[in-house]
């Protein structure tokens, strides 16, 4: 009997390991299926949300579309695998999604412990504070004794405790669950301060009737590098996701946009020609078509276009590029050369 049980458990274990390792060949799976399955959020303002006809939009979704454009030649061929913060990694690791573009902070434990492969930072975020202007607070260091709306069970909660402890200040935590709840509490004056990632603060502030009366304080108290992830064990697929992101950054750096990409095919710059597949065979080395990067830029756009369309100054969210400007403009977005 015991032998039987042991062998059953062993079989299950083997199956589990098999499913974790037998993921090589994601590229072939995606091509065969004719659709790219991206693990996205169930709704984060500016990053992923459905429009009224159920089409997914947003910063993360656009990167997913860029990946589909590169792999399948059609940015529309995506499937949004909606996931909450709790299920996102299992959805990826169990093979329900091909790639994770989901507002995910890169950390040591996720990279090593959850066995993910991260591919660059497509958005540099950080935890900030928002207060009403009438409080007259100019810096986070003046927040001693304030009541703070904070999402429970997140890294922001720990960051907040660390920051206040470090500066010898006290605060009263108002525990909230969702962003809507935070909004209600903050607007009704239940808490003086709302803290979460700066992009989230800007998105929340944009929904206030009196947005101009609220200010996001200059201090950013944590590093939240957000980036795409894939499973361990499929290096070719990892390379593709990495270079999809780099292609959007390089395109912006070289001034290639969705409007001028056709003209750029006859550019004199050899790097542009290599990237767009006019010269060389970088696409084939990746296992893709020659014009993979051309398709990304033509159908989705370069990094700057994706940023401005979804979360930039002209959108209701109205984020400045800040850290996410190109390295040539004082930001951190930097791509290795296409050589």
């Amino acid at each position, binding site marked *: 009997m015991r032998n039987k049980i042991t062998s059953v458990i062993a079989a*299950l274990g083997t*199956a*589990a390991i*098999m*499913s*974790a390792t*037998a*993921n090589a060949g994601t590229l072939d799976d995606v091509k065969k299926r004719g659709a790219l399955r991206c693990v996205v*959020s*169930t*709704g*984060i*303002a*500016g*990053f*992923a*949300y*459905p*429009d*009224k*006809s*159920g089409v997914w*939009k*947003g910063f993360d979704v656009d990167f997913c579309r860029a990946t589909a454009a590169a792999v399948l030649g059609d940015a529309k061929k995506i*499937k949004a*695998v*909606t*996931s*909450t913060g*709790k*299920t996102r990694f*299992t*959805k990826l690791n*169990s*093979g*329900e999604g091909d790639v994770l573009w989901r507002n995910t902070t890169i950390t040591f434990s996720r990279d090593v412990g959850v066995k993910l492969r991260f591919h660059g930072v497509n958005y540099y975020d950080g935890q900030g504070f928002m207060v009403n202007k009438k409080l007259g607070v100019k810096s986070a260091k003046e927040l001693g004794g304030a009541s703070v709306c904070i999402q429970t069970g997140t890294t922001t909660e720990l960051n907040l405790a660390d920051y206040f402890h470090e500066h010898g200040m006290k605060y009263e935590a108002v525990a909230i669950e*969702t*962003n*809507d709840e935070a*909004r*209600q509490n903050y607007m009704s004056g239940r808490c003086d301060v709302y803290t979460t990632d700066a992009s989230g603060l800007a*998105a*929340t502030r*944009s*929904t*206030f*009737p*009196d947005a101009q009366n609220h200010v996001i304080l200059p201090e950013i108290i944590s590093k939240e590098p957000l980036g795409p992830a894939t499973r361990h064990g499929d290096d070719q697929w990892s390379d593709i996701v990495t270079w999809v992101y780099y292609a959007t950054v390089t395109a912006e750096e070289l001034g290639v946009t969705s409007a001028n990409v056709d003209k750029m095919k006859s550019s004199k710059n050899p790097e542009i020609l290599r990237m767009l597949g006019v010269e060389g065979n970088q696409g084939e080395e990746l296992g893709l078509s020659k014009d993979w990067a051309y398709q990304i830029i033509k159908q989705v756009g370069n990094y700057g276009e994706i940023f401005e369309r979804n979360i930039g100054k002209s*959108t*209701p*969210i109205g984020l400045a590029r800040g850290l996410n400007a190109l390295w040539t403009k004082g930001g951190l977005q930097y791509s290795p050369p296409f050589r």
Partner: protein
Amino acid sequence: MAEVTRTYKVGQHPDLPPPRSEVGVIGWVKYNLLSTPFNVIMTLLALWFLWSIIPPLFEWAVLDSVWTAESRKACWAKMEVPEGAACWAFIKDRIGLYIYGFYPAELRWRVNLSFVLLVLAIVSVLYENMPGRKFGLWYAVAFPFITGWLLVGGLGLTHVETDQFGGIMLTFIIGITGISFSLPIGILLALGRRSTLPVIRILCVLIIEFIRGVPLIALLFIASTMLNYFLPPGTAFDLLLRVLIMVTLFQSAYIAEVIRGGLQGIPNGQYEAADSLGLTYAKSHLLIILPQALKISIPGIVNTFIGLFKDTTLVLIIGMLDPLGVGRASLADAVWAGLAREVYIFVAIFFFICCFGMSRYSLWLEKRLSTEN
């Protein structure tokens, strides 16, 4: 008119109607609202409370509300004070998403047809006086399979992946599958638990106790994540199917216990009477025991069903978008974000209508089946 006075012999006077002040609206108010000083105070307090709540709410939700606008800003621009009234334009803008989820727009007629078929099935199950009810019942049995084919496609219809299901449609799929499959399974489990055959009894007890001992959300997590690790790659089957199986199992265990309560409420004499008539186990249960047991279990069964219907919102946690999920996802659209109240009130009204309907029907059914005078 001259007053007519008549004299009656002792004991012959006809019964007079009770005085005006004791019956009708006045009497009702007098007895129910103003019978003691304490009740007078409570009535006044309640009136004041209603007065301070209802007119502003009515104004917010109906009188001042905005029904057509392109965005939150446009909505608020139409109000005297931004955020001062309900912006139902948001719900109207998204109503397709709330009802059909991500179902392809050109195939939505299939969902509409399913809703019509659902109404027909419900009517033929619930109303005994319908002509041709026998066919109606067979139809109701076939209904889940017909609709399943209609929604998923195949066999001539375009295939639609179940991850595109969402909204009210998803709630109904999970709720109705859970309800219609858990009742027969629950009855079998309940009978099995009372069986004299030890193997069947122990098996049923194990199933019931295991499933009842685990929260639904844990079962959903098992369905959505654990199963994938155990099944070999490529064989993992549809997430919605996994969820449906888990919800049905969960519900069956609860129904089984409710029905076991009903079975225990039947006096032993009924069992003995059935035996003395020489009825077999199946016949005695079908003809004598179960009709009575089910009748007294109705409140419990409906209670469980209502609970299940509301629990369907838990699928939000594993990333499926039911009406609540659609609402929350829509709130992430920067054009509309910030209108959380409208979303939650809309979803609450939807669930209230469904659950209140179920509870009214069960009351009606209890009255109809009542054999007491």
